[in-house]
């Protein structure tokens, strides 16, 4: 891990939104380095800037000041170079396209050949365990399956980075556990660098190699925890002493961020 190159590097990042009630400091003095192959979770209460930071990495928001690079480029250049796949809170599949058609959407836009499109759709559907659902329409799938399809869509064009904004936030606990397990397997198979926004402590601890604890007003990083858990993680690792200890540290970080407001 030590020899891995830096993929995302943020230094002194500030972002202020001008609103009618005056300026809102969404991000203040954020420094973070993400190495290749990292699974980084951003956790914190609403308004702590975790989603904003993810959107800065994606080039969907522009920081007011500070520097951020993605693959050595500005986020906007990285976006134009299609350096990442983005998974939103809702699956956001087009209802008029089949599951296969939805996964083809980025491939069509990026100009892949028809045969390549078909080949890739088959491969990513396999990856998210949805083989055989290619011809179904989104409404024929459960919420969890739809979200898996949207992950497949983000994987289809083989970007090295996967950015996920509370992708399982709207799903129930059991489906969520299942998807977390699958996501880890997928991460192990594809060796992607993943940025993952959540407000669930167990989810963050279970998934991540690095947990970034954030707090609001102004949005900032209060703790960065390098997880000592092994890469191979069965679901019952969540009962281990190590797991509970990390979860404690995350909770403390969240509480500390709350106290000094």
């Amino acid at each position: 891990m030590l020899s891995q190159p830096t993929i995302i590097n943020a230094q002194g990042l500030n972002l202020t939104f001008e609103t009618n009630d005056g300026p809102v400091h969404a991000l203040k003095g954020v420094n973070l380095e993400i190495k290749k192959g990292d699974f980084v979770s951003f956790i914190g209460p609403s308004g702590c800037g975790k989603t904003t930071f993810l959107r800065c990495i994606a080039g969907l928001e522009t920081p007011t000041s500070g520097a951020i690079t993605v693959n050595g480029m500005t986020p906007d250049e990285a976006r134009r170079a299609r350096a990442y796949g983005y998974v939103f809170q809702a699956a956001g599949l087009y209802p008029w396209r089949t599951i296969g058609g939805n996964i083809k959407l980025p491939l069509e836009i990026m100009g892949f050949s028809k045969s390549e499109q078909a080949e890739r759709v088959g491969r990513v559907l396999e990856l998210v365990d949805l083989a055989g659902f290619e011809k179904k329409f989104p409404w024929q799938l459960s919420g969890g399956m739809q979200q898996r399809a949207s992950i497949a869509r983000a994987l289809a064009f083989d970007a090295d980075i996967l950015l996920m904004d509370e992708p399982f936030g709207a799903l129930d606990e059991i489906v969520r556990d299942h998807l977390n397990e699958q996501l880890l397997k997928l991460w192990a198979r594809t060796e992607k660098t993943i940025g993952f926004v959540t407000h669930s402590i167990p989810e963050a601890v279970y998934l991540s190699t690095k947990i970034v604890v954030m707090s609001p007003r102004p949005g900032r990083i209060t703790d960065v925890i390098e997880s000592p858990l092994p890469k191979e993680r069965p679901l019952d690792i969540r009962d281990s002493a190590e797991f509970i200890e990390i979860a404690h540290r995350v909770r403390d970080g969240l509480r500390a961020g709350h106290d000094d407001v």
Partner: protein
Amino acid sequence: MKSVLPVLTIVAAILFVWVLAVIPMNMHLTADQAQRDGLAVSPETPAERQDHSGLGLSLRNPSLLGLTFVQERPRLPSPHQVAVEMWDTIVMKKITSKRSLVYHGWVTLSATLLGFAIGTGLGILLAVGIVYNRAMDMSVMPWAIASQTIPILALAPMIIVMLGAIGIQGLLPKAIISAYLSFFPVVVGMVKGLRSPDGMQLDLLRTYHASPAQGFWKLRLPASVPYLFASLKIGISASLVGAIVAELPTGARAGFGARMLVGDQYGQPLVTWAALFAAAITAAALVGLFSLLERLTLRRMGMVRA
């Protein structure tokens, strides 16, 4: 199919009220005619009868009630009279005859369809302009709304006379008035439809670095289809109204509008009523056709649960 019973119930209720209304509406006429035919009528002079309401007169002359339904030029025709007139002019006449409602219907329908095509095309173009061009966004909508506040009845003769002055006659002036009425619902619906994708869906396309053209063809246009169909159903009936209105002020010799005018001017209410009903049935059929197209399209697109 579940709607058959409620629809029939309403139709029955309307027919019932209609039949009841025929008696007092036609009673004065009927009494005058009956007197000329030598029947006993009370009271005896037309002047005296004018002092009575239709209902009062009906109560005093129960023997004449049946005759109110068979007047040649009734104030309110009875349903069966309208039905017979429609049967005569739709089914019994050759469609090339100047008295055939099919012939007149086609004259109006061709203007309706041409106008609808122009209006829909114009509406979609304006909507795309409004969504993609800030200047159009700020300027077009108030004018579009203003255009619909002008009574078409006042505007139609002017348009037809002005177009006539520059040598445009026949189908096109009527179609333009149809288009004038039908572009508006299409503009409103399509603007809403093209803007219906939410921020997340637009962000998704940004993460793919999609071009604006790709955003239009792959996201905005398909997302607007359900809105378009809602607009088309309003637009097609507005088009038909436009074509009929366009026939009224210009002394058109053919079309539903011309028949209504002829019936009015020559005291043939049955002609007017038959044309009215034929127009209503045409409108219902057109809207029904678009409902069917809507269902088929949305099902093919996977947007309704089959």
